[in-house]
C-alpha cells in the first residue's frame, strides 16, 4: 500500500489528546505554517504507525505536530503548527 492508505483523520487523536488537553482537540483549529491553511484538527491527516504519532497538514502534508510517549511522559513536537485555537 502507498502512504495514502496508512492515513487516518485527526479524529483518531481524540483519545490521546484528551489525556493531555482539557478540551476536545478534534474541533480545535490549527494553522499550517507551510501553506497558511487553517483547518479543524479532526480534518488533518494522521499517521499512527510512525514512531509515535504524526499529524500532517491535509493540504500540504507538512508535519504539524508529532507526539511520542516514553518513560511516562508525552513529548509534543510542534513543527508547522503556527497556532492552535481551542474552543472552551
Amino acid at each position, binding site marked *: *500500500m502507498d502512504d495514502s492508505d496508512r*492515513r*487516518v*483523520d485527526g*479524529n483518531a487523536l*481524540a*483519545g490521546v489528546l484528551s489525556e493531555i488537553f482539557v478540551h476536545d482537540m*478534534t474541533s480545535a483549529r490549527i494553522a499550517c505554517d507551510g501553506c497558511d491553511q487553517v483547518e479543524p484538527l*479532526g480534518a488533518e491527516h494522521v499517521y499512527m504507525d510512525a514512531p509515535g504519532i504524526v499529524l500532517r497538514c491535509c493540504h500540504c502534508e507538512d508535519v504539524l505536530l508529532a507526539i511520542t510517549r516514553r518513560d511516562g511522559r508525552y513529548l509534543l513536537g510542534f513543527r508547522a503548527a503556527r497556532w492552535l485555537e481551542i474552543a472552551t
Partner: protein
Amino acid sequence: VGEVVDVIDETPRVRTIVLDVPGWPGHRAGQHVDVRLTAEDGYQAQRSYSIASAPEDRRVMLTVERLAEGEVSTYLVDELRPGDALELRGPIGGYFVWEARIGGPLLLVAGGSGIVPLMAMLRHRAASGSMVPARLVYSSRTWDEVIFREELERLAAQPEGPEVIHTLTRAQPSGWTGYRRRVDGQMLADVAWPPAAAPATFVCGPTPFVEAVARALLLLGHPGNRIKTERFGPTGG
C-alpha cells in the same frame, strides 16, 4: 468500565455489544470510545470504536467488525459475553459529530462498517423527531453483509424517514436493480444533493473509500468545509 448486557449478531463478521455504563455522561452522534483490553500478564491493547446508539438511548452500543488480524476486534466479536466488564474511555471526539440542531440536509456516505457512526446519526435523527432531509449512500460487498439492514428499511419506510441508497460491489441477489459498483462521482451526482444545497456531509469507511468519495464530492463542487471524514486506516483491529 461498562458491563456487557447483551450481544447482537448483525452479520457473520459484525456484532453489536450493548453496554450498561454507570456514570455515562451522554454522547453526541458520531463520537467514539477507546476500548482497552488488559491481558493477565499486563499486556494492553487499545482501539477506537464508534458508538452506534443514539444519544437518546439509555445503553451504549458498540458495533464491531472482526478483522482478520485484529487482536482486539476478534476478542470483542468472538469472546465477549454478557456479564463481562469492558474498560472504556469516552465519549471522545467533537469534530465528526452531527446533532439535529446542526440542521441539514444530511448526506451520509458509508463503506462497510463505516455505517456505525452514521447509524448513530440516523438513530438520533429519528429519536429527536428531526425533519432534516437525510440520505444515506451505503456501499457493501454483498446483501448479507449490509449491517443494520432491517432497521434501515424500517427507518426509510417512515414518513420523513431517510432515503437509503445501497450499492453492492461484489455480489447481488437475483433481481437486484440497485447499484453494483463502488461509490463514484456519477453515483453521487445522481443521488446526493447538488453542491448548492451544501449538505452537511459525513463520510466513513476504509481509508481508500473515504478518499475516493471525498475527492469525488469536491470534484462535483461540494465545499470542502461541509465534508467531514473518518478513515479507518489499515490497522484498526
